[in-house]
């Protein structure tokens, strides 16, 4: 082969190998570090995996925030209107965390289906609801409406 052609072939091969390694590595790392979002209903129906970092969220249930008396342990319920998920966290909660407001927790589910959170995010602006939470609430609302309709129809029959 012509030496210049040979050099070019080597370069092309190098690029192909390097970029496939890069793409493979990137896909693998994305898979490892992509945290999926689950609604409380999904978690309680067993759709969310245990011992894998996930995100879950909804509205914080009124009166559900329980603080430990001697540490920063805290636990609370989040709801999508259908189901409640217990979240347990140790540390300082964000400023806009409050009962009846949206919150998203990142962490792993334990065997009692409690989310052991490593991070809790609240909305950053009064008029802003995280799209995931809004979505979850809507889904739950729609399901409720369907149920109601069904019950109504069943009653009618």
């Amino acid at each position, binding site marked *: 082969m012509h030496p210049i052609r040979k050099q070019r072939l080597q370069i092309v091969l190098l690029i192909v190998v390097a970029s496939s390694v*890069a793409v493979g590595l990137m896909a693998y790392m994305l898979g490892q570090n992509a*945290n999926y979002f689950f609604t409380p209903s999904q978690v309680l129906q067993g759709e969310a995996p245990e011992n894998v970092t996930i995100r879950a969220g909804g509205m914080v249930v009124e009166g559900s925030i329980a603080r430990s008396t001697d540490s920063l342990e805290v636990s609370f319920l989040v709801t999508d209107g259908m189901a409640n998920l217990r979240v347990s966290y140790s540390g300082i*909660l964000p*400023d806009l965390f409050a009962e009846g407001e949206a919150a998203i927790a990142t962490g792993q589910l334990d065997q009692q289906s409690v989310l052991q959170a490593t991070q809790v995010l609240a909305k950053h602006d009064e008029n*802003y609801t995280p799209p*995931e939470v809004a979505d979850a609430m809507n889904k739950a609302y729609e399901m409720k409406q369907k149920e109601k309709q069904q019950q109504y129809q069943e009653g009618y029959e």
Partner: protein
Amino acid sequence: MIAELGHFALIIALGLALMQSLVPMVGSFKGYNAWMRLGHSLSYGQFLFIAISFVCLAAAFWLDDFSLKYVSQNSNTQLPNQYKISAVWAAHEGSLLLWALILAGWTAAVARFSRPLPLELRARILSVLGAISVGFALFLILTSNPFERLLPMTPMQGSDLNPLLQDIGLIIHPPMLYMGYVGFAVPFAFAIAALIGGQFDSAWARWSRPWINMAWVFLTIGITLGSWWAYYELGWGGWWFWDPVENASLMPWLAGTALMHSVSATEKRGVFRSWTLLLAIFAFSLSLLGTFLVRSGILTSVHAFAADPERGVFMLMFLAVVIGGSLMLFALRGPAMQKVASYSGWSREAMLLINNVLLVSSLTMILIGTLYPLIADVLELGKISVGPPYFNFFFVPLSVGLVVAMGIAVFSKWKATDSKFLLSKIPLPLAIAVVGAFLLPFVLGDTDSGYSVTAGLTLLISLWLLATIAIDLKAKIGTDFARLAKLSHSYLGMQLAHSGLAILVLGVGLNAAYDEIRELRMAPGDSATISGYQFDFKGVNPVAGPNFTAYRGQITVTRGSKWVANLFPEKRQYNAGGQVMTEAAIDPSLMRDIYVSLGEPLAEGSWAVSLQVKPFIRCIWLGGILVGLGGLIAATDRRYRRRKTLLENKRAES
């Protein structure tokens, strides 16, 4: 009345921009000199009218005109005056107007300072900038009019500026960042004009370099300010979160950095021509993408204040036209621009190639990590967020490679470098770095926690870079510091920027290694010890600010028997919206920050408190500023100011 004037001025500006995008361009093809010259006056006119529009909006804020929807949503009579002005760009509409104003400003600057360029090229550049301006003016007028009235239901009081944004950092951070984003429109317009004309030579490269540098300087300073703001204002003590919005600003920065380096090789040696053009297109496209990500509200993030699908669709179409159109043009014309030039494996060209490969790899992986959740959402693969481990896994080794390569590159020469010469330069700085990396962690770290590998590696690469810079400087000036003034600004700027990067790396790595954070419950009289500092919690008192009330804690910090600082972190509640905000208290110094913030009140007068000792964190922003300063010095190189050179070159060529 003022608002109508502003709205009207904006519409006139749109008309002028429309003419600017067409007349000089058509003129350049038909050879009508008068048409081409019109580009200048149109640029100035457009700048004037957008400035009038901007001043009108600012006046509406100053006069508390809550009949304007935008003002009523982002201001309040109690808001301190300086924030009334910065509130102009606190949300979507106003920040777009600021964007348009800055674009018009850059365009006017190009019109003013581009006299030495051939008229045809100049006309096309101004036309491309005018076309971008049309896009933004239309976007403003059609979907995001800041002058929209709330009539007849005019509120008596505004709903206030988001307290997070009531801060000096937010007065300067967005304008700086936008100056950078929009500044990349200039090299973009250059690239497009060159592609249209099919003319691309080293004069082009030399002429565009100071513009690339200036845009890049603003972006560097903007990102640094943003990081600093997030650090003290969000109350978590972090300086970078791999938040999509941060990535949105880092991506054009990486593309711009690659562009700055590749254009230097294009200017000096005529290599990487089409690659340079492509990078110019990328840098601006990524700036637009950043605007889209931040302003369309498709992200779940700190900055996603707006959520309006109409705007998102407009932005997406605008992006498609700009990126698609310019890449198409590049596909048609770009390859013909390439000139065959040879260089050997150890040349400076090769080093710059390594730089570009590493920067573009970082950029690609950030782009994929940032867009992946959006793509997955669209394809209904689930709602995903990509965590920091992904970004760190790639970004850290790539950056380490960059710093290591930088050290060698400084000794390399254009075209070819004797490999023996290059290898002979390695032992001394390597020895300095190894010794420093081995010994310094024993001095810097806690004696009981042992040797920190992270700190060691950080010192190894940053000392390596600093040592190579010092050795190269010594070879150039010896011990006679007066000779520093004789070195070119390009060289001095480069060395300063590279030193800044070494200091930044030092700050990042040492902070990662020695950072101590503790969140705990403290009652008045409690104390805690972190990294040798003792924190005494004295309790919390209510205080009143201009537009908020707050609980102010007092924490006394001592080290051994020595007093260090009294810190007063606050938990504020703003009067207007009732929003609660943490105001951290910081005792800053170059060697370490002491960072204290209040969490929430707990039973019996005790509070959740976050106590942090953050060694060398200031080096991150100091480094960032030095990097920016280096770029600024390089932009003032005398070569770029010789106006006649270009014309002479032209004559010599013909």
